[in-house]
C-alpha cells in the first residue's frame, strides 16, 4: 500500500537499527507494527499476516514512484471513512482499487477492496444493506480474497462472513471462515475468527462446533471477553442441561486465569440447572472456583453462603453437599485422619473420586484461610480432612507445616502426628507411580526438622527420629529424580542427615557431607559447599585415597566456581 509503504520506507531506515538493538524486548516491535500498518484496517479485524519488512520497504519505495497518483486518493478515502463520510470513502476506495488493478498492484487492490467493502457495509442504515450494496460489498471482498496475501484474504473472508451472518446466511459464513488457514494467523486474530466461526455455527444449529470454536477463541486470547460471554450464552440457551460442557467451560476459564468469569458463569448455570441430573458436578466446579479465587472466609460467608442456601432450597438433592460446604467453611471439627471417617463426615461428597477431590481442594483452601487468620487448630483439621478424603499430599504437607511451626499441636494431635510419621500416603496401597513425591519429600523434610530441633537423631528404623525422616526424604528425592533427572538436588537435606549421622557417630556422615558439598558446588553455592567440605574434613578417622581424591575434585570445582 502506497501511503503506508511511503511511511514504511522512511521508518525502515530509522526503525530497523533500533529494532536490532531492542530485539529481545517483549514489547511489540516498531518494525512489525509498521508492517502490520501497511496492511491497513478491514474495519472488522486488525490485519494479520507477516511481511518481510525490508523487502516490503524496498517494494514500497519502488511503488512510490509508480503509484503516486492514487496514494493521496487512498489516504483521503481512508480519512473520510474514519470520520464517517462513507459515500466519499466508497468512491475513493473504488477508484484506488481500479487504478491498482490497472497497475498490477495486487497488494493495493486487495487493501482498497477490503476497505471499500467495509465502507459499503458501514454506509448501510443501521447495519442493513440493500441488495445492490450487498452485492457490491461482496464483490469487493471477493476481490480482496482473490488478490490479497494470506492476511488480507483472512480479513476479507472474515468480513464477508460477518456480512453473510447479518444477511441471514450462516452456512455461507461458516464456509468462508473455515477457508481461513488458522495456522498462519496469530493468536489475537485467530481468536476473532474462531469467535465468528462460533457465531456462524451457532446460527447454523451446529451446537458442538460452536462450543468448540468459542472455547478455541478463549484459548487464543483469554482476555477477549466476547468469546467467554458467547460460550456462556450458548450454554444458557441450550434446550437441555449441558452439565459436562459447563464444567469443562469452568475448568477452561480457570486454567486460562479467567477466575472471576468462571465463578460468575458457573454460578448462573448452577442456578439454572440445580436439581437436574449431575448438577452436583457443577457444584463441584464451583468448589474448584472457590479453591483458586481470592475469596476470604468473610466473603464466603457474606456473599456466597446466601447464594448456596438459595440453591439448596431449590434443589433438595444438593442440600447435603451444600451443608457439607458450610461445615468445611465455617464449622469447628476435630482433625480426622482415616478415610472412612472423613467419608462419613462429608457424606455429601463421598460418592466418587471427583466429589472427594473437589471437597479435598475446598478443605485445603479453607485450611489456608484459617491458617492466615491464626486459627491453626481449625487449619490443621481441614488439612487433615483434605488429606484423608482425597489423599492430597499438598494438604498433608501443610498439616505437617502446622505441626512443625506449632509444636503444641503435636501433643494434642498425637494420632495425626503418628499418621504423618507413618507416611500414610505410602501405606494406603495407592498407585506408586501416581504419588506426589515432591510433596512427600517436603513433608519428610519438615518432620525430620521437628526431630532435629528436639535433637532426637534416632536411626534408620525409628519412625520418630530425624535420621528416619531424612532418609525417607532422600528416598523420595530418588523417586523424583528417577522420572525427572533435572529435579534440583537437595544439598541442605544431605547436610542435615550428615549432621545427624555425625551426632550418632555413624560413618555414613562422610559420604553425605561430600554429596552435600558436591550439590552445593553444582548450584554455585560456594560458601555452603566450602562449609560442607570442611565438615567432612573435620570427621575423625583416616580417609581412603578415593575419598581424598573426591575431596580434591570438589575443592577444585569450588575454586573454579569462585574464580
Amino acid at each position, binding site marked *: 500500500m502506497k501511503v503506508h509503504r511511503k511511511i514504511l520506507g522512511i521508518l525502515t531506515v530509522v526503525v530497523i537499527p533500533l529494532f536490532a538493538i531492542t530485539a529481545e524486548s517483549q514489547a511489540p516491535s516498531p518494525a512489525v507494527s509498521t508492517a502490520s500498518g501497511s496492511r491497513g484496517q478491514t474495519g472488522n479485524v486488525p490485519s494479520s499476516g507477516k511481511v518481510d519488512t525490508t523487502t516490503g520497504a524496498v517494494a514500497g519505495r519502488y511503488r512510490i514512484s509508480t503509484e503516486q497518483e492514487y496514494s493521496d486518493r487512498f489516504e483521503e478515502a481512508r480519512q473520510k471513512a474514519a470520520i*464517517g463520510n462513507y459515500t466519499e470513502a466508497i468512491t475513493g476506495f473504488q477508484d484506488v482499487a481500479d487504478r491498482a488493478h490497472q497497475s498490477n498492484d495486487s497488494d493495493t487492490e486487495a487493501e482498497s477492496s477490503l476497505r471499500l467493502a467495509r465502507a459499503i457495509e458501514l454506509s448501510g442504515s443501521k447495519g442493513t444493506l440493500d441488495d445492490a450494496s450487498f452485492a457490491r460489498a461482496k464483490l469487493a471482498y471477493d476481490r480482496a480474497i482473490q488478490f490479497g496475501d494470506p492476511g488480507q484474504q483472512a480479513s476479507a473472508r472474515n468480513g464477508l462472513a460477518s456480512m453473510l451472518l447479518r444477511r441471514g446466511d450462516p452456512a455461507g459464513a461458516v464456509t468462508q471462515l473455515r477457508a481461513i488457514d488458522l495456522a498462519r494467523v496469530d493468536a489475537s486474530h485467530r481468536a476473532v475468527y474462531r469467535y465468528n466461526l462460533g457465531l456462524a455455527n451457532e446460527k447454523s444449529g451446529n451446537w458442538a462446533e460452536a462450543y468448540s470454536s468459542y472455547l478455541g477463541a478463549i484459548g487464543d486470547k483469554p482476555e477477549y471477553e466476547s468469546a467467554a460471554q458467547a460460550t456462556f450464552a450458548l450454554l444458557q440457551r441450550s434446550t437441555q442441561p449441558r452439565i459436562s460442557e459447563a464444567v469443562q467451560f469452568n475448568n477452561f476459564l480457570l486454567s*486460562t486465569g479467567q477466575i472471576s468469569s468462571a465463578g460468575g458463569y458457573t454460578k448462573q448455570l448452577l442456578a439454572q440447572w440445580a436439581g437436574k441430573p449431575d448438577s452436583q458436578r457443577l457444584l463441584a466446579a464451583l468448589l474448584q472456583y472457590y479453591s*483458586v479465587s481470592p475469596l476470604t472466609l468473610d466473603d464466603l460467608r457474606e456473599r456466597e453462603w446466601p447464594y448456596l442456601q438459595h440453591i439448596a432450597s431449590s434443589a433438595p438433592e444438593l442440600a447435603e453437599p451444600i451443608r457439607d460446604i458450610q461445615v468445611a467453611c465455617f464449622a469447628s471439627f476435630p482433625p480426622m485422619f482415616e478415610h472412612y471417617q472423613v467419608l462419613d463426615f462429608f457424606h455429601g461428597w463421598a460418592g466418587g473420586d471427583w466429589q472427594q477431590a473437589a471437597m479435598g481442594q475446598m478443605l485445603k483452601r479453607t485450611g489456608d484461610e484459617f491458617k492466615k487468620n491464626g486459627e491453626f487448630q481449625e487449619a490443621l483439621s481441614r488439612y487433615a480432612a483434605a488429606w484423608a478424603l482425597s489423599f492430597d499430599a499438598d494438604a498433608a504437607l501443610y498439616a505437617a507445616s502446622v505441626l512443625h511451626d506449632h509444636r503444641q499441636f503435636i501433643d494434642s494431635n498425637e494420632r495425626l502426628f503418628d499418621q504423618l510419621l507413618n507416611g500414610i500416603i505410602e501405606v494406603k496401597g495407592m498407585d506408586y507411580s501416581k504419588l506426589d513425591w515432591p510433596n512427600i519429600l517436603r513433608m519428610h523434610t519438615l518432620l525430620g526438622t521437628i526431630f532435629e530441633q528436639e535433637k532426637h537423631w534416632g536411626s534408620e528404623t525409628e519412625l520418630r527420629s530425624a535420621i528416619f525422616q531424612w532418609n525417607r526424604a532422600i528416598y523420595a528425592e530418588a523417586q523424583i529424580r528417577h522420572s525427572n533427572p533435572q529435579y534440583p538436588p537437595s544439598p541442605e*537435606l544431605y547436610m542435615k542427615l550428615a549432621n545427624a549421622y555425625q551426632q550418632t557417630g555413624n560413618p555414613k556422615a562422610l559420604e553425605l557431607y561430600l554429596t552435600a558439598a558436591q550439590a552445593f558446588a553444582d548450584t554455585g553455592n560456594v560458601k555452603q559447599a566450602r562449609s560442607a567440605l570442611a565438615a567432612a574434613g573435620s570427621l575423625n578417622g583416616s580417609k581412603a585415597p578415593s575419598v581424598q581424591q573426591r575431596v580434591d575434585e570438589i575443592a577444585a570445582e569450588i575454586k573454579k566456581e569462585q574464580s
Partner: protein
Amino acid sequence: MSRPGSNSFRIVELCGCVCLALLANRFAQAQQGQALPVGVSFEFADPQIVSFFDSDTQRKQIEQQIGAQFISRLQSRFHYWTFAPTSATVNVSLKLGLRESESQTVALWTALLNGSREITRWEKVVYPPGELIRLGMPTARQWLAKLPGVFDDGFLRSHNQEILNALKGVAPVGKDIILMPAAADPSLLPRAVLALDSNQYDDLQDCEFRLHYDWSAGGKVTIHSSGIGMHAPFAPATPPFDGIVVQLEKWQQGSNSQDIERMRNHLPELTPVEFYLEAIKGPGSD
C-alpha cells in the same frame, strides 16, 4: 551463593545491565502514540532473605535484573500499557517483594499502587513448606532463574483477569484525545482519535474505553466509547502516527449518564485528561 567476583555472577550482572540499559533506552524513546507507563519495582524485602546476600550492592543488582525480567513478562502479557522501572513521574505501579513465613515458606507478593495507596495485592508461594529446608537458601543466580517463571505462571497467567481488571481500573492507557470533525450523516455518533499508535495497538481498535475530561462548564465528565475498527491520523503528532478511532456513546457526570447525542454540542467544551481501557473486545457480528 554466587558472589560478585565470580564469572557466573559477572555474566548475569552484565546481561542484567544490558537488559536494563535497553529497557531504559526503550522507555526514553517513549513518544506520542505509546501507552502510558506503569511502574514496576522489585525488592527481596524480607530481612531473612536479604541477610543471605554478600552485600547490598549485589542484592540491588539482582533486584534490578529480576525487575527487568518482570517488566518483560508484563509487557508480553499486557501490552496495553508500557511497563517501566518505577520512577517519581509514574503514578500507578506494581511493587513486588518476597515474604518468608512459617516452615520457611517463601511467597512472592505483588501490590498494585495508585500513588502511595495500595489498591490490591496478590501472593504466590515460590517455595512451599520444607522446600528451602532441603535446598538451602537460593543463590543470586537461582533467584534470577526462579522468580520470573513464578511471576509469569503464578500471577500473570493464573490471575490474568484479576490483574488486567485491576490495571484497567486505575492505570490510564493514554492522555491525548482529538475530537474528529462531524460526519456528513448527522445520525452517526461523534468520533474521536485516541493517542495510541494503531501499528502497535491494533488489537485495541474494537475495544471499549473510558475517556476522562475536564468540562469548562464545571466538573469532570467520563465518556464511554467503543472502537470501530478504524484508525486515523493523530494530528499534529510528530512523528505522525495513526491513532485508534472511537465513537462516543455515553456522557457520564457523577452518577448521571445519558446518550451522547443530547450532549453533542458540549463536546468542544471538554479538555481531555486521560483515557482508560474499559473492555477488551473483538469485532462482533451481531
